């Protein structure tokens, strides 16, 4: 019996097979890669595979949201500030054209060098960041622009000021905002999908995940520190809670996996961006035709089913 994940990958594979050209770039090799992915999916990822994903998801050269923005969006205009008290550089928001239509983008952003990393707080947002995101989402809803989010954060920032400014409530309200939107929404985990800080901007009609991204309830180190009482047991923790894309797909947490260049997105950001653009465009096309009420109903119904339980 093929799993749902496998069926979806096969569908994607056959679709890609019929799509020779994308903006003049030949998708050479992509079919092979998806085929590889399919084979890997059929074989359960090993503990080493999972840890490889953790390392690739955090690779210092991995493309961040703005690296994709310059490659995917046309006429991008960044929006700053939460209109309350601050502009959180750990989350970028803006409007741009994707495949000819205007969309709103929300994404976590980390820096390349230490200076920018510090400025961006290593991609860990304050409540102000989530409020900025909500403001951008409201704009999308007001004008009927689809919303695209890119998720890449170790987590929401755990600091005194962040707590005082209402971190928990901001994350909760950001999810509630996404659950309410009447426009099409697509989220993609493009690196580390760390806990509440990640899901805050990932409640979407279609949730995609790059092949080597991770999505988890806690960092491997955090989990190891609590359950193994030793942060050095992070590998064991990761193998136990399985944050890799294949497992997330299998558990129904994400809707599709976006392929990456052979050795990871950082080895060829242009190719990675093409694949991401293709994945997002495809996801948007699937949901754009739906009536807005029906789309929101389906979105909530999807989350209604999350979880695995039994009856005593």
């Amino acid at each position, binding site marked *: 019996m093929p799993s749902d994940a496998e069926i979806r990958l096969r569908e994607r594979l056959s679709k890609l097979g019929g799509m020779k050209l994308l903006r003049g770039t030949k998708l050479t090799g992509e079919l092979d890669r998806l085929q590889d992915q399919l084979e890997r999916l059929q074989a359960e990822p090993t503990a080493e595979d999972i840890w490889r994903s953790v390392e690739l998801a955090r690779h210092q050269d991995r493309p961040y949201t703005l690296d994709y923005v310059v490659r995917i969006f046309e006429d991008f205009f960044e929006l700053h500030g939460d209109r309350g008290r601050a502009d959180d550089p750990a989350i970028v928001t803006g409007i741009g054209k994707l495949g000819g239509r205007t969309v709103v983008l929300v994404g976590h952003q980390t820096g390349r060098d230490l200076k920018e990393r510090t400025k961006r707080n290593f991609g860990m947002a304050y409540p102000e960041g989530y409020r900025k995101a909500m403001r951008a989402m409201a704009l999308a809803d007001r004008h009927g622009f689809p919303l695209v989010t890119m998720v890449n954060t170790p987590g929401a920032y755990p600091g005194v000021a962040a707590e005082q400014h209402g971190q*928990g*409530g901001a994350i*909760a309200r950001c999810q509630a905002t996404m659950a309410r939107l009447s426009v099409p929404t697509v989220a993609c985990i493009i690196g580390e999908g760390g806990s*509440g800080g990640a899901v805050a901007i990932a409640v979407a009609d279609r949730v995609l995940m790059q092949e080597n991204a991770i999505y988890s*309830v806690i960092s491997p180190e955090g989990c190891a520190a609590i*359950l193994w009482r030793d942060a050095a047991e992070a590998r064991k923790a990761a193998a136990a*809670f399985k944050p890799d894309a294949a497992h*997330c797909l299998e558990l129904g947490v994400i809707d599709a996996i976006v392929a990456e260049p052979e050795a990871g997105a950082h080895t060829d950001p242009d190719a990675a961006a093409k694949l991401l653009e293709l994945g997002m465009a495809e996801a948007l096309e699937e949901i754009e035709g739906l009536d807005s009420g029906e789309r929101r109903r389906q979105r909530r119904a999807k989350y209604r089913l999350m979880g695995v339980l039994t009856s005593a």
Partner: protein
Amino acid sequence: MSSGQGGIDVEVESKRPEEAPQGKAHPNTCPGCGSHYRDDELVSTLRVCPQCGHHFRVRARDRIEQLADPGTFVEEDAELRSSDPLAFFDLRPYTERLAEAEVSTGLGDAMVCGAARIEQEECRLAVMDFAFMGGSMGSVVGEKFTRACESAVAANTTLISVSASGGARMQEGILALMQLPKTVCAIEELHESGGALLSVLTHPTTGGVLASYASLGDVVVAEPGALMSFAGPRVVSQTTREKLPDDFGLAESNYRFGHLDAIVARSELRSTLGRLLRLFRKT
């Protein structure tokens, strides 16, 4: 030491700091003032220290007894159990931890839900129990809360949530995280059908529960001294090396910063909820 037999003992006597008492304090000893109580004394004071006002933790069933009109609580969805989708194993298997928690608490998971009346007002209750694996939220808590929302919609009543949680249940991995959007979506449905959520935060309400349904009440109140923070004090001080204020994450601090409608002493909780139920009644 090297002077051998008959030498003078030159060890200097020094005053050592008093050692912390061994092991855990007795559950009936007040951590605030050290007073000790019999069980029946604590029951009669709603588990609040009469000396210093410290609010002891309250188990879910005791909480329901404190709040609901006698004999009106009818439990719903008690049969739900987690099924260990990841075959999770840390130092011990998750299934073993679950079984142990069930035996020690007498509960199927960390939340008890059902229909009740408070001061004659019909309502639904979703009450967490910290004793069951630290009140962590996994698939069962998420499902129970969601069903409680649906039950409130069906009965056209207000839902009261009483939270006490260390956050999402790590042993259920990403599915535990998915309970955040799941409960959030359930509240959206509740709100769209005209229902209300009253959220009571008790010590402690942290992590994923604070970052989802507990923060989304139409009215949000907390018990005095309750810790309510997204990241716990230890995580914050370890990660940021910031000096934490004495009232870090406490209800009092959250009230000052505008994240709470009120801090309600336990003795006032029942009457406060009764008043709110009357105010939100649509018929």
